[in-house]
């Protein structure tokens, strides 16, 4: 036998695997910068019923609203402004200040150009304000270059009876309360669970890799190696099938591959125009809100509809050539993923055009997409199996897709749903995947730990069920197609 080099010795291999694992666990923890320690956002102060406009905020005036919150962190605020119907080019300086020491805890700049007269504007903090539970704080709104007649004004709230805190203009008390909303988040025991769970997984990984090493040295086969070899063997076929789907899709059109980028862009434009004219929802950045939902849902519906037919359509091949049957639905999901990449690029173009900025958090979209793809593979395996035995599946499923589309908050805000429906949405996988992506794209923030968990659980469970059903029935396919 050939003598293995240093890198191939079993102990080094195990060490490399473990080191990589520890590195990933640690990197992920630091990359989230503590955001996952907090639960989901809830409005902790909600003074949204506007009364009348206060005075303009100019260079020389500033408002301060004092308040305390019963939460561990502040992750965003909402404010309403009136422009008195004028075009105003100003920049508002909005900050959260420690009421006792006067220290600025967080500050944001808001261009008045994006404000719609009288409507609410939500600002999501990319970094949460922490350690503020029960402390006296103030929300300070000042202007960079506003002059009387060319400035915006905030609203006063209709008194709700609850005592919020004083409202001051240039530090002098005025009557009433500012109309505003504070979104708070509470600490969840994320850190303990994260490190607990990842150490447990780490130990399992260590045991498995040591056991695998010993088995390999005794010349036995190891599950993971078999799996990798299996995929290596069929990787070429998969690339050929995916390449075929991609090449033939636009083969006989004049614009060719350009269509794959143009198609989603044009579709998006049409859908945006229709939905934004038809329904006037109070959603900030509606274009991106709508399109992110449509792109993800479209990916799901294309991948599942195509792979549902894959076994039947390849009946001739299945009857004559030996290829593992999962390749057919799997390759369709991969083909749809290629189309999705182009649609996603179009979405990014829209994101940039609408003035949203890229954040480092985009990297974590990969997790959501990976979960979505695993979910789709599982669902495709189930559907393609059902299709072999019951041809009604395709008709039932297309109706089901319609219902699913309207039940998922794609083009409408989730707030319009009744409470019990919103509770049920937790169990709608597409709701979770869309919400995960939207949090990152629209708010530039990280989804909370629960959201991560839901996405992962839906992906794994659906995939396992899919593999189980497909595996149990695949030997019978040949007899029914």
């Amino acid at each position, binding site marked *: 036998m050939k003598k293995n080099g240093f890198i191939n010795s079993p102990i080094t291999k195990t060490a490399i695997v473990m080191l990589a694992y520890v590195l990933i666990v640690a990197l992920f923890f630091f990359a989230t910068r503590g955001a996952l320690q907090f639960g989901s956002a809830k409005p902790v102060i909600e003074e949204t019923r506007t009364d009348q406009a206060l005075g303009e905020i100019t260079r020389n005036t500033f408002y301060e609203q004092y308040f305390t919150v019963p939460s561990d962190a502040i992750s965003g605020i909402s404010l309403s402004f009136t422009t008195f119907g004028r075009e105003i080019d100003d920049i508002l300086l909005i900050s959260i200040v420690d009421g006792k020491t006067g220290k600025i805890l967080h500050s944001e700049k808001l261009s008045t150009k994006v404000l719609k007269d009288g409507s609410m504007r939500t600002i999501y903090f990319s970094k949460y304000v922490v350690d503020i539970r029960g402390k006296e704080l103030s929300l300070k709104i000042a202007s960079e270059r506003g002059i009387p007649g060319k400035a915006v004004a905030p609203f006063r709230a209709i008194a709700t009876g609850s005592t919020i805190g004083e409202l001051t203009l240039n530090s002098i008390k005025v009557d009433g309360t500012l109309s505003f909303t504070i979104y708070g988040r509470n600490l969840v025991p994320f850190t303990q669970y994260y490190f607990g769970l990842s150490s447990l997984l780490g130990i399992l990984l260590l045991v498995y890799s040591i056991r695998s090493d010993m088995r390999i040295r005794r010349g036995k086969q190891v599950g993971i190696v078999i799996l990798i070899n299996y995929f290596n063997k069929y990787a*070429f*076929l998969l690339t*050929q*099938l995916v*390449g*075929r789907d991609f*090449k*033939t899709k636009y*083969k*006989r059109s004049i614009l060719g591959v350009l269509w794959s980028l143009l198609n989603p862009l044009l579709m998006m434009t049409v859908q945006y125009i229709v939905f934004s004219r038809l329904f006037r929802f109070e959603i900030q950045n509606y274009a991106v809100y709508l399109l992110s939902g449509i792109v993800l849902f479209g990916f799901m519906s294309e991948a599942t509809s195509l792979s549902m037919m894959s076994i039947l359509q390849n009946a*001739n*091949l*299945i*009857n*004559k*050539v*030996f*290829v593992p049957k999962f390749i057919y639905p799997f390759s369709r999901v991969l083909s749809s993923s290629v189309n999705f990449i182009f649609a996603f690029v179009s979405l990014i173009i829209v994101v940039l055009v609408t003035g949203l900025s890229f954040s480092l958090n985009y990297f974590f979209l990969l997790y959501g997409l990976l979960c979505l793809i695993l979910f789709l593979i599982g669902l495709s395996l189930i559907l393609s199996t059902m299709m072999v*035995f*019951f*041809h*009604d599946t395709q008709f039932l499923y297309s109706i089901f897709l319609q219902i699913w589309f309207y039940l998922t908050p794609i083009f409408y805000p989730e707030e319009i749903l009744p409470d019990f429906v919103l509770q049920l949405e937790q169990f709608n996988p597409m709701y979770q995947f869309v919400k995960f992506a939207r949090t990152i794209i629209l708010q530039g923030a990280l989804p909370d730990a629960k959201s991560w968990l839901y996405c992962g659980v839906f992906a794994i469970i659906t995939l396992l069920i899919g593999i189980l059903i497909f595996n149990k029935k695949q*030997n019978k396919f*040949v*007899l*029914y197609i």
Partner: protein
Amino acid sequence: MITLNDISMNFTLATDHVTNLKEFLVHMAKGKLAFREFKALENISFTVNKGEVVGIIGANGAGKSTLLKIISGIMTPTKGNVEVKGTISPMLELGAGFDPDLSARENIFLNGAVLGYSKSFLQSKYDEIVEFSELADFIENPIRNFSSGMIMRLAFAIATVVDPDVLIIDEILSVGDAHFQKKSERRMKSMITGGTTVLLVSHSLEQIRSLCQRTVWLNKGRLQMAGRVEDVCGAYEEFER
């Protein structure tokens, strides 16, 4: 090389082929969802040694193709198991997975991948395939513009470029015009006599006699006789008469 242990294959044939929900419910309601067992193969056992060329003969519907599909792994037998050592190349279908919109070159790689060839193997054999198919001038054209003979030539060239441990052939194929028919028959025969293990189904006893060392005779799903070519073919001719 190939060991078949007590293979049985049953097809459950629904008296009507029910593949949709309405039919299923209607039949259920009528209590008519009857299934008929059809035994395509019953307790087949035999062994093919390394380097042997074994012929399989039998009337239509005797189960020859089903047996080849089971050995190739396309079907799983109801009972019994098959052991095959080494790479296996079933030549049951020419041009499986061809896409009319792709060029001949792209189809060589697509079809090759479907047949289980590796990328490096295809790249090294690419020139040989093109040369044998005599399609060098049209290699970048989509095959939708090809005549059926040209497509078969391409398919044949891809299918026969392999050098497997076990070769499974359902009828010796000769495709194309007279010139290419001779060429393809020569190639098939050289593959069969080249020292690999071969399982050959044919209706031509003449071919079986000239190419095989042993013969298996299937009759209505049962193994009627197996042994030396002359004995089995003789008995088969006697039986058919």
